[in-house]
């Protein structure tokens, strides 16, 4: 019974195993990025960037059909153009970075949907918007795993300036010039992980596996190391449980994964040990000293 529910789907079907491996790889790379986005109050930036990837992937699709590398490459380029373009415009005009990013991603989204619709079918459009986690071939898995590995490595390399730029940017500026390059590397990581997530979850939900685990982790850990561990753990659990739920209830898998993460979020808001609602509501005697 337990075996049938929790293990059999993966033991019996190769596409389920692949989906599981893919979501675990995503769960290693994206959530730490999400934690930093959240701590820098850039939670919605991930969403905007995810939309910005669309036209690049769509142009890749137009040129080479459903080719993995054309679409991933196109997405990567489009994402980087938007990230750097928005940064550049905000620095050279009076528009703040979030405003120029909003302009960029809306244009990108409209452009991307237009390109896909002109060239492909509604099925293609659905693939773009929601991904196809149950149809991942070897190259796709390699791409996602590669992105996860690179982003963990780069994160380790830029860890100090990244943390310092969040806590005390003035101090970082006074001791080092590493802040700017670290910020750009970080934006590149955001784009890369969204491109990876895009393959599995589509442009609309890729950001879900990045941000939801990050927000969840805030309710369970007090320091950043613990938060990143919690975020990775909850993303992996969401991936596994989401696939199971979608298998047994015959629901779409991508949204299933994100919905499980959503459920974990709801539980965390209510019961999370760090600032969860029930702990705030329960009257606790204060300490002596």
């Amino acid at each position, binding site marked *: 019974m337990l075996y049938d529910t929790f293990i059999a789907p993966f033991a019996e079907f190769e596409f389920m195993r692949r989906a599981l491996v893919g979501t675990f790889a995503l769960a290693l790379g994206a959530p730490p990025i999400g934690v930093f986005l959240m*701590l820098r109050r850039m939670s919605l930036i991930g969403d905007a960037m995810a939309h910005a990837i669309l036209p690049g992937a769509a142009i890749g699709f137009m040129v080479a059909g459903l080719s993995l590398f054309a679409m991933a490459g196109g997405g990567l380029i489009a994402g980087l153009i938007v990230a750097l373009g928005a940064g550049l415009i905000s620095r050279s005009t009076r528009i703040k970075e979030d405003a120029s990013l909003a302009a960029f991603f809306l244009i990108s989204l409209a452009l991307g949907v237009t390109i896909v619709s002109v060239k492909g079918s509604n099925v293609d459009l659905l693939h773009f918007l929601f991904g196809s986690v149950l149809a991942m071939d070897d190259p796709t898995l390699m791409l996602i795993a590669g992105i996860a590995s690179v982003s963990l490595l780069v994160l380790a*390399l*830029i860890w*100090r*300036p990244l*943390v*310092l730029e*969040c*806590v*005390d*940017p*003035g*101090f970082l*500026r*006074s*001791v*080092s*010039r*590493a802040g700017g390059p670290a910020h750009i590397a970080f934006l590149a990581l955001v784009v890369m992980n969204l491109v990876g997530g895009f393959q599995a979850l589509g442009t609309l939900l890729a950001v879900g596996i990045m941000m939801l685990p990050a927000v969840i982790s805030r309710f369970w*850990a*007090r*320091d*950043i190391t613990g*938060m990143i561990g919690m975020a990775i753990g909850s993303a992996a659990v969401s991936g596994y449980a989401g696939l199971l739920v979608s298998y047994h209830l015959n629901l779409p898998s991508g949204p299933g994964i994100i919905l499980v993460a959503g459920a974990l979020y709801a539980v965390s808001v209510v019961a999370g040990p760090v600032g969860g609602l029930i702990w705030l509501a329960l009257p606790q005697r204060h300490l002596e000293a």
Partner: protein
Amino acid sequence: MTEQLKFRNLTLGYDRHPAVHHLDGAVRKGSLTAVIGPNGAGKSTLFKGVVGAIKPLAGRIERNGVRPQDIAYLPQVAEIDRSFPIGVYDMVAMGLWRGKGLFGGIGRRDRDTVEGALAAVGLTGFEQRPIGTLSGGQMQRMLFARLLLQDARVIVLDEPFNAIDTKTCADLLLLVRRWHSEQRTVLAAMHDMELVKANFPESLLLAREPVAWGATADVLTPENMLKARRMCEAFDEQAQACVVAA
């Protein structure tokens, strides 16, 4: 070579308006100088110039072999995100940046150094406390511990004792005197004239233009203070280009 910082006809400011106007003079190596003057006199602006955060509108600053990033700087309003989940220990350890850089490991001896700095500011036992739970005075103590670890030849403190109680102030002043005895060059923006008289051998009185600079007793005269107070704070939007010879 006894001069650590030299200002040559230095003008610093914002949008072409001077906030420090035609400052000439030198800060001796190992000296302890209070920079005083009313709000808007240009104290913070001068410090930002010294640490290289803003470029001079005219003139220059000679630092005599010290790079701007080797100057330890305590800003008046630190841009610290106090909600960030980081503890006092890690925050203080960042003072080791110059020796460790991006990748250098923190070894046994470094940990002792960090503990020593925490003890010197009276924050032993606070290692794991998130910075968001610190009081204003504890925060300032933590930042002083970080300054200690920076081990800099030149230390610039922008109003370090504002909104700080007497006890904390006295503790931190001990550190300032220790730096002085170690022949480090210290500049501090100050508002409490009693503290200045008691602790700072030299003073620079600014009111956009330098009013007086020298031994504290000679600078803090009633005439000088009156002169400084007459300074007009607002920028003149119709101001013409300055014609004083550069």
